[in-house]
């Protein structure tokens, strides 16, 4: 286990009376792709600005590569930023844009031209060296901004909604390229977005933020299927939430009482008390639960709608709970039909706040 490249300790920030970050602590490992996901006003951009040195936090410390950078200006930090609107210098050629940071650091012309060309090749734009930014498409500009930041060999690269200005198709394509480039250079990335699909596709470590706090963090798959906060359960896509109560924890088995009956889940960290069960619509299955599955009881189909790539069904259970299902399109199901519901225990989240 290597030392973290970034350590954030008890970081708080307030704009006047308004506190936007609350006592945040976080470690980022070298080479990790971290995504900050949250709605606007959740503090994700503020956190990024503090990491980049554009804002001084009200309290707390930021260590980058072992050095205290809390009050260090952006130029002195081993970080570079890819700005939301790219902030390319419009009067300079693409090559001059990419070489700008090297020039500011006194690198000789021949060397910086070589390095700039190499980095442009890395992002697939070596032929654009002599062009002006306004001659490029949005996606190409985005790559120039990335090259301009990468050429500085930062310990940490910050990206502020880097794909926000692109249309959907291009965004998905750029997102794959971004991930590939990150793996190739091995630099730790911190990427801010409010697009959950983008976040899940890119993140090694996904941080869900709400009101200046990290409300969930971890592997994106875990955060998606077994969210650890009500906010992350509902912010990212559709979810069914069922009130429950943990009545007993014996060894690693938690006994949970719900309106559908009592069920047993393998959750060693559970504690007795109120809880919420979460199941994603695509993980809810039709049919009687056989061994090892979790039953959600019987119910009546209230709605069945063809949605193109899937069929959406709403089942009203006999315990008066509405459960949403995403089913295969060819699954025969019609309104008024009686069905039984179950899910794999690995797909059931247990929320305790």
């Amino acid at each position, binding site marked *: 286990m290597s030392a973290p490249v970034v350590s954030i300790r008890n970081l708080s920030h307030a704009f006047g009376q308004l506190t936007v970050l609350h006592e945040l602590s976080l470690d980022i490992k070298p080479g990790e792709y971290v995504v900050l996901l949250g709605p606007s006003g959740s503090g994700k951009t503020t956190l990024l600005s503090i990491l*980049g*040195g*554009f804002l001084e936090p009200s309290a707390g410390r930021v260590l980058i590569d072992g050095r205290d950078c809390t009050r260090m*200006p*952006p*130029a002195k930090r081993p*970080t*570079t*930023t890819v*700005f939301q*609107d790219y*902030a*390319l*210098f*419009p*009067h300079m050629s693409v090559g001059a844009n990419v070489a*700008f*940071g090297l020039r*500011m*650091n006194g690198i000789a012309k021949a060397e910086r031209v070589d390095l700039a060309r190499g980095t442009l090749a890395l992002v697939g734009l070596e032929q654009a060296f002599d062009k002006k930014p*306004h001659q490029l498409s949005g996606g190409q500009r985005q790559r120039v901004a990335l090259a*301009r930041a990468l050429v*500085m060999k930062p310990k940490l690269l910050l990206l502020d909604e880097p794909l926000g200005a692109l249309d959907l198709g291009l965004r998905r394509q750029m997102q794959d390229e971004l991930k590939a480039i990150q793996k190739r250079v091995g630099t730790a990335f911190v990427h801010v977005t409010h697009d959950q699909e983008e976040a899940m596709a890119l993140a090694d470590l996904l941080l869900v933020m709400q009101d200046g706090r990290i409300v969930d963090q971890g592997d994106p798959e875990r955060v998606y299927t077994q969210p650890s906060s009500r906010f992350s359960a509902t912010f990212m896509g559709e979810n069914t939430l069922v009130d429950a109560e943990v009545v007993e924890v014996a060894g690693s088995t938690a006994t949970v009482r719900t309106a559908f009956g009592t069920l047993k889940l393998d959750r060693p960290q559970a504690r007795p008390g109120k809880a919420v069960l979460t199941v994603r619509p695509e993980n809810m299955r039709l049919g009687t639960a056989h061994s090892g599955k979790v039953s959600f009881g019987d119910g009546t189909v209230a709605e069945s709608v063809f949605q193109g790539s899937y069929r959406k069904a709403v089942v009203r259970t006999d315990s008066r709970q509405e459960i949403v299902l995403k089913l295969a399109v060819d699954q025969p199901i019609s309104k008024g039909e009686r069905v039984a519901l179950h899910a794999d225990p690995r797909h059931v989240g247990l929320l305790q706040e």
Partner: protein
Amino acid sequence: MKRLLDLAAGLYALVAYGFIYLPIAVLVLFSFQASRFPLPPFTGPSLRWYGEVLGDSKFTGAMLNSVVVGFVSSAAAVLLGFLAAYGCARMKGRFGSAVRALLIAPLSVSYLIIGMGLVVLFNWTGIPKSLLAVGIGHVVINLPLCFAILYSQMSDNIIRLEQAARDLGAREWQVLALVVAPVLWPALLASFVLSLTLSWDEFLIAFLLTRFETTLPVEIWTLLRSGLNPKANAIGSLVFGISILMVVLAELAIFGKGRKKS
């Protein structure tokens, strides 16, 4: 009925444009007069008076003075206005708006008041009436204008470009010289040409602050005091022509750039 209205509108336009341009047209026409008075009948065309003006060292000297005062004072006004706008774009809150208001307010003070103030101040501080004094006066009147133009161009976009430059290791003077100034180049040129035009035409302050060496508008005034003279028409036409040239250059600088971008 409609045709009648169209005719009336056309007539109105003709009168309106005549009202604006007739004095200039008459001025230019009689600068080509061959005889001694710029009055009908027109006896030209002749370049006699242009020859006299360009052969008279009093006028060519005054013209040169005007050019020097214009270029130096405009450059100073643009530089000071640019730095003030750059600083003010970073100032928030009530203090920032007070500083901005104080910088722009002199636009509403008449040149006569500013000129009188400068006479008193220069007298008191021992700066003699001179081209230097006029130059300072022209910086005083043009600085608020340059500031207002350049401040309006300090958008969030520029602030992000600065952030990017600093992030990449640029020092403050490098941010200014390598990023902000080149990006604002059209606005810098426009405020320079505008200052130059105003300085070139300015009479009151130049009249109050010069004695022996003087600028062209003051020289024209001296000439006109002794009555009408086609020589004055010739100088006026030259001044007008140069002003038009500067305005066209400014237009090209600003809108030419805009066209290239789109």
